[in-house]
């Protein structure tokens, strides 16, 4: 019995963050724009302004992803935008069809982040932790909930 309790408690600690969080692309866009790009995006910017800024830079967000609040950001999605942001900051962004291209040296964006010590896993956990608190005000306002 005790073992079961400890087992469940351990599982909760390990998976608790990802189970409770609902990471949407809209939230990610706002966090990224107002966080990593805060020097360029106004603190008062709306969701659509954040998305427009990021898309303009090549950190692309699809309308199909953004318009579906049930669609969750995966680790691969997250690593892509973080990787694209890094390339942008380094001045190494190669934009193809409006999106910053993944460097050929890495097979996936997760690989790219790991190979370049982006500290991606920590960012991912922080993102999920933030999402545990619920959607951002900008997102709620856009979809009429705020």
């Amino acid at each position: 019995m005790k073992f079961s309790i400890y087992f469940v408690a351990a599982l909760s600690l390990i998976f608790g963050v990802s189970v409770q969080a609902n990471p949407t692309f809209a939230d990610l866009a706002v966090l990224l724009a107002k966080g990593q790009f805060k020097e360029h995006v106004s603190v008062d910017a709306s969701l659509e302004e954040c998305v427009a800024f990021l898309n303009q830079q090549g950190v692309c967000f699809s309308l199909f992803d953004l318009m579906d609040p049930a669609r969750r950001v995966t680790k691969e999605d997250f690593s892509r935008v973080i990787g694209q942001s890094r390339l942008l900051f380094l001045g190494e962004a190669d934009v193809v069809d409006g999106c910053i291209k993944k460097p050929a040296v890495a097979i996936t964006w997760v690989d790219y982040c790991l190979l370049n010590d982006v500290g991606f896993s920590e960012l991912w956990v922080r993102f999920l932790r933030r999402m545990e608190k619920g959607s951002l005000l900008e997102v709620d306002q856009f979809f009429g909930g705020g």
Partner: protein
Amino acid sequence: MRKSIVYSTVVIFLLSWMSVSTVLAQSLMPATIADQGSDKVGQEVKAAVEAGYRSTKNKNDVKKQITDIMNEAVKNGNVENLKATIIGAMEAGGADNLDLCIAAINDSQADETYPDIVKNLMASVKAMILANKGSGKKDQGGGKDQGGGAGHNLLDDGGTNIDDGDLPGTPT
């Protein structure tokens, strides 16, 4: 026959009807889009409507094409596919053809059958498309010193401790 195959076939038919290039039509074989979810449907609708815009100068033809696609999406009964269809059609025309696309959707049965979904989604997509069009300038103001922020930075854990290795910000 599965509904998605029927739906995809109709998209292909409409694509051909608009006399688009054979190469493009061949690249949109039903097998490639069947059962691949609403994303695929949306992408195919986007491609079809884009081809429509390219193939004719008569915008009314494209408008009718969009209305027909919407009606098929309603018949199909899959709300997710319908949403993807709306997004794909609106994105295909961009900001310059927003009014035409909205009118086409309003002419379809989608607006009657799912009024709230259609109205809300169209408003959201329109806002996104217009914002994308209007974002001509890189610097939207602000400058380096914008104050403490609202815990938006992913490198900021939301706490005010300056010794914890992150970028201390305002707790949320």
